[in-house]
């Protein structure tokens, strides 16, 4: 059965609201505009493809129509990216960052860099901001929809949708970390902070992961809280932090923060950004599904 026009229009508007909600800080950040024309095309291409993969994964495991066929997931991802491009273009124009006098490489670069986060925001917004979205569509009948009463060990290897958990955690990490990664502050903190305190930040991140996932009583966390066991907690925290570090490093690399930088400063930046990414990976993954 086709959805009614009103319903699909509602979904798109929800997506647009979500896109702006999650990416507005980036649209208002100078460093991101600059990244648009500084970034080499090859790096830009990798960024677009990585975002598209993330969209596919998110739509597959947590999106509005998660049980839909592969083709429908791909179509949704293309639509989200298209909406992202349009929203980014309109916002950048309104903010005076693109105009007709500029060269095409500059305009397209700025739009593309901004559009990627907007697209993830659109995806999350469409799926999460709706009150009736989950029941209305085929969403919850999917094979990986678990009844919320049965406790599921978080991120344990015997679980069927381990890949899905990782995909959602990665989405949360990227969504949160992308807002901080392009700013100068990350490198300033990384350079100025003594090693001992960097270690403190790393431990804090892991502590947050444990608290949010197992003890916070966040929406959804009760699904894991019944099976605390030291092994599960340790496993969950380590995997979450690992995902956060990978996401941080990838975004920092894209924004050129690793170029001509010594390994230790790269690592320090990853740890500094990792705090935000861990919050995203743990809280985000509870809220995003």
């Amino acid at each position, binding site marked *: 059965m086709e*959805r009614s026009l009103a319903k699909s229009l509602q979904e798109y508007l929800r997506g647009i609201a979500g896109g702006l909600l999650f990416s507005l800080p980036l649209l208002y950040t100078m460093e991101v505009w600059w990244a648009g024309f*500084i970034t080499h095309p090859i790096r830009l291409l990798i960024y677009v493809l990585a975002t598209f993969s993330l969209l596919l994964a998110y739509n597959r495991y947590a999106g509005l129509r998660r049980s*839909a066929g592969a083709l429908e997931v791909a179509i949704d991802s293309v639509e989200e990216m298209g909406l992202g491009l349009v929203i980014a273009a309109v916002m950048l124009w309104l903010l005076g960052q693109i105009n007709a006098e500029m060269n095409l490489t500059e305009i397209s670069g700025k739009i593309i860099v901004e559009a990627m986060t907007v697209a993830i925001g659109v995806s999350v917004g469409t799926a999460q901001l709706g009150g009736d979205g989950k029941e209305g569509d085929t969403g919850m009948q999917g094979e990986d929809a678990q009844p919320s009463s049965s406790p599921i060990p978080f991120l344990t290897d015997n679980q069927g949708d381990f890949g899905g958990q990782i995909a959602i955690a990665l989405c949360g990490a990227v969504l949160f970390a992308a807002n901080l990664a392009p700013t100068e502050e990350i490198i300033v903190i990384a350079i100025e902070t003594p090693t001992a305190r960097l270690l403190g930040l790393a431990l804090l991140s892991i502590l947050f992961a444990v608290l949010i996932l197992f003890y916070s009583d966040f929406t959804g966390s009760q699904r894991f809280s019944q099976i605390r066991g030291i092994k599960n907690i340790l496993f969950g925290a380590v995997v979450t932090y690992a995902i956060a570090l990978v996401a941080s490093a990838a975004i920092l690399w894209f924004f050129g923060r690793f170029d001509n930088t010594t390994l230790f400063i790269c690592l320090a930046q990853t740890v500094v950004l990792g705090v935000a990414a861990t919050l995203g990976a743990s809280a985000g993954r509870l809220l995003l599904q």
Partner: protein
Amino acid sequence: MKKLEKNWLEWIVFAISLILVLFTLGYIVYDGATLGETPPNIELQLSQPQPQGDRFIIPVTAKNLGDATAETVQIEVTLNSGGKEAETSQFEIAFLPRYSTRRGWVIFQTDPRTVEQIQARVLGFEKP
């Protein structure tokens, strides 16, 4: 495969999105394939001096013909009279992306229309 259930609005949004995404990917690939390795190459162009109150302004256009972005581009314009430097002015451009143009003005006390030669040059820039 299950038949797709989409109404016309969804098909239109999808079609436009697909075009945008394919165009974007195509453009990036084209840009990457044609991008050379030349460093920033900045060309300056001076326009007609205009009097403004008790001073004179000259519009300067800077165009980067190289394949890389230049940061903090320092531009100096000198008025030469009788083989001597009469007056010097300068300004800075924060970012000059590849193939892009930025505009600025230099301001002088001396009337540029009375000097023999106006010289503009780029002092230097940073790699972002």
